[in-house]
């Protein structure tokens, strides 16, 4: 029973893989398709991984999507103004850092509930993205070739043509894993998530930790925004917005797999893969997009329900 609870989501994932393998014997479980999936999902993955960092503290960051949009726009505007790539990328990352620190400031110093704080900054960042781009899509000659080529790059690795975006997502995964699971810093974040008041009284520097964790997430969102802009070779002020809810869904899917229902980045990875595989498999099966939406929602619920049966409760 505990096993069903703990491994329900994982079993569900394997079940989904088997199902698509059965239905699409020639095209689903192929190296090419799997690498494609990994690239398709890389941006969502990065956002979900860094979202895990703040969720470990029991917090949320609803602004990741609009931060990703803003970062893309910031880079695009710099490119359009003729600055070299590194300046655009640097400016976007700085925007992510600044936005993240601002979120952290609101949450940790002003003690605003993260949900509200980041709902507010979601609006603000999105407004800034519109303002910076004047509401336009920046594309074509304004985006340097080298920048948009990055997303198409493949690096030979372990005999596989690994997409650059996939490798970037893996790098973020490893980093988040090390930070969350292998350092006192990460353990303190989990302690804050376990009981903020207890952590504070036990000498945890709550304010500093929350501030930096949100900064971390902000930079991660900016990276995802840059990946997105590179992939679509353009930047518009809403392109990243959809990442937020999916990222949260992925983290929650992952949470069903941990003992105490806390977010773990490896669980998040599985959550992200479930979403990606469903999208890819169902559209290969030419399932009507409306039905696909319903199915994805239903499958998320089933996975989480099996995970909950044994007693995972709301935190």
């Amino acid at each position, binding site marked *: 029973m505990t096993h069903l609870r703990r491994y329900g989501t994982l079993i569900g994932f394997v079940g989904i893989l088997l199902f698509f393998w059965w239905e699409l014997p020639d095209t689903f479980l192929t190296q090419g398709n799997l690498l494609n999936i990994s690239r398709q999902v890389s941006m969502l993955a990065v956002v979900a991984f860094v979202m895990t960092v703040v969720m470990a503290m029991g917090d949320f960051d609803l602004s990741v999507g609009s931060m990703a949009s803003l970062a893309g726009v910031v880079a695009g505007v710099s490119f359009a103004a003729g600055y070299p790539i590194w300046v655009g990328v640097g400016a976007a990352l700085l925007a992510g850092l600044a936005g993240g620190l601002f979120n952290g400031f609101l949450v940790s110093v002003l003690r605003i509930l993260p949900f509200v704080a980041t709902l507010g900054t979601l609006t603000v960042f999105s407004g800034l993205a519109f303002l910076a781009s004047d*509401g336009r899509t920046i594309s074509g000659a304004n985006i340097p070739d080298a920048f948009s080529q990055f997303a198409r790059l493949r690096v030979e690795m372990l005999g596989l043509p690994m997409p650059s975006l996939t490798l970037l997502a893996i790098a973020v995964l490893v980093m988040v894993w090390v930070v969350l699971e292998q350092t006192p810093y990460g353990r303190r974040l989990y302690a804050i998530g376990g009981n903020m008041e207890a952590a504070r009284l036990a000498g945890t520097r709550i304010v500093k930790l929350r501030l930096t964790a949100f900064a971390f997430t902000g930079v991660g969102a900016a990276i995802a925004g840059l990946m997105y802009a590179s992939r679509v070779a353009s930047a518009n002020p809403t392109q990243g917005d959809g990442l937020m809810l999916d990222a949260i869904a992925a983290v929650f899917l992952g949470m069903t797999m941990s003992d105490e229902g806390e977010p773990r980045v490896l669980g998040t990875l599985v959550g992200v893969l479930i979403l990606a595989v469903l999208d890819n498999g169902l559209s290969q099966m030419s399932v009507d997009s409306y039905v696909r939406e319903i199915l994805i929602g239903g499958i998320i619920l089933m996975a989480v329900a099996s995970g909950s049966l044994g007693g995972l409760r709301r935190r």
Partner: protein
Amino acid sequence: TAQQRVAVITPYLAQPGTQFYIDGFEAAASPDWDINVIDTAGDIAAVISRIEDAVTQNVDAIVINVDPAQVSAGLQTAMEAGIPVVGMDAGMSDMLATNVTSNGYAMAAETSVYVANRLAGAGNVVMFVFDPFPPVQIRGAIADAVFANHPDINVIARVTPDVQDGGIADSRAQMEALLAANPEPGSINAVWAAWDQPALGALQAIEDAGRADEGIVIVGMDANPQAREAIAAGGNFEASMAQDFAGIGAAAADAVARLLAGETIAQPVIYVPTVLITTANVDE
């Protein structure tokens, strides 16, 4: 003389086309106008609210860029206050002084017939559509009719991409999946997209899958800059329809000017011409 105030209200400012309307409108506007551009981020009821606010402000004219049937509550308020409302690619309504637009039926017919001709009347077509938005829905309906009229043209998928991100990324993922599901060369012959973003997404997917040389024909619509570049590059993306967005904006401004001058406009719809863009004329 007192400035004349014009409120331009749209739920779709984030979409590239809308920007060109507004630019065209502002460029052609009289320097005496005080123009307030209001975006409601997709919320139609908020368009009504903003029309009401504009009426409260007693502006001199209102321009909308949304289906008038859905905002008739607001239009009625404006009518009662005697404020003229001009549609900018909005739709026909007797509560509008006039509507300035391109002929969407003709545009869709032109690109879908282009596809049918390029395939010589036979082949597998992927369609990217978006029915929730009436002007785009019209395009899909016309293309459906054209393809259905060719017995050997087979629509193998009619995809509604997620447009939250502008449409490129999700269309691309959808196309990648379709390519993976149809690995045989020649199993997909054409992509017909109701606007440019999905066409661009499909193009990226095809190039990336290394299937650019199969001769898959891609057509889009609206001929945005990115699409023009793709057409100019001479790859799979062969054609798109150029709507004269700036021209529509300018014509709308002209209509407003006439109304403010006390004229009445007789035509319920003013059509602004469109052009099929191919490699032949893309550089013009």
